């Protein structure tokens, strides 16, 4: 059990944190491990090869369940209480500051690129055009397109090297 926890806890926390945010994260991780342990004890999981896939499935189901619960409770509150409390869904000030910094980095990186490469990135990230469409419109090969994207990302990484510290939000306490 301890070994199971040691192997999966970071990954499970990561998924739950990424999908549901930091609220009640420890409880959610605990629930996932309870479900897995019960399943193993009940003999529902006989093949060790399938353990990783099973853990992933449990995490996915838990995420779906939490989202469903949130939707249900919002719907119920709305029906009962017309003066329901509205949550502020904006990111917290620290997160906003980080996002602003990241945007500045990306702007600096974009400003340093030739016009054509900038156009490629704007089409891809802003207009969400497909790689095929961009390559066709701008007469690029797929390799050139990938290279442009890869170079841009590397340049962004260089500019923000110091800033690319690991986020601690999903790490176990």
């Amino acid at each position, binding site marked *: 059990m301890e070994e199971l926890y040691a*192997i*999966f806890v*970071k*990954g*499970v926390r*990561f*998924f739950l944190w*990424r999908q549901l945010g930091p609220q009640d994260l420890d409880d959610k991780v605990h629930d996932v491990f309870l479900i897995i342990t019960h399943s193993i004890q009940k003999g529902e999981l006989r093949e060790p*090869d399938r353990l*990783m*896939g099973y*853990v*992933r499935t449990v*995490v*996915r189901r838990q995420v779906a369940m939490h989202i469903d619960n949130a939707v249900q409770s919002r719907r119920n509150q709305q029906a009962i209480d017309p003066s329901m409390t509205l949550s502020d869904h904006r990111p917290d000030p620290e997160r906003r500051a*980080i*996002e602003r910094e*990241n*945007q500045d*980095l*990306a*702007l600096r*990186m*974009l400003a340093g690129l030739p016009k054509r490469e*900038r156009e490629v*990135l*704007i089409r891809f*990230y*802003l207009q969400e055009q497909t790689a095929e469409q961009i390559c066709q419109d701008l007469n690029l090969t797929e390799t050139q397109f*990938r290279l442009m*994207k*890869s170079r*841009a*990302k590397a340049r*962004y*990484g260089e500019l923000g090297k110091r800033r*690319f510290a*690991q*986020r601690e939000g999903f790490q176990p306490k």
Partner: protein
Amino acid sequence: MLQYKIVGFRIMRDIHRHMDEEELEQYSDGAGTPEQTAALETHLLTCEECRNQLLQTDEYVLAMRSAAGHERRAARTREREWSVPTWFPAFAAAACGLLLFVAVRYWQAPSLPAATVDLVAMRGAGTPGAAPAGRALLLHPDLTGLAASPSYRIQVVDQTGREVRQSLMEAARGAVQFTGLRAGVYFVRVYLPGGELLREYGLEVR
């Protein structure tokens, strides 16, 4: 059955392979087939390196979207600010032509020396001093008999008494220069620096 085993093998192989940039971006975007997503997520469960890479990719994609939007808006603003009106080239050409014409005329015009005018008191039957119009004037007022002063204030007024030129003249020099006047009758007045009017001369510019 064989097909099932092959897919299963591919998934198992993918589970232990690190994600490349394209896969990270695809996953971050929520794109990709369910099989690919399953394999990537299973790998992510146990690979810290890929989890960190994914976080960086999430941030990068978000930053790029936001920066690309910003850049596109800024480009539109720049286009609006710098758009040249259709009439501007014709207007600019006409303005340049006019400027060139004035400049040529100015440089070609001969610069004449100032005309010297001796001014005598106009009391009695004296005729006013005469000077050419539009040319610099070097006025020599007759200071004989005036209260001694190191300098005098010289004022030029038109027929209505409106001041048109004014300057300070050193007594030792005995002359003062003014820029050209239009044709007409003027009066040149000499004052002490304190303000006391000493003398007045007539000046006809033609």
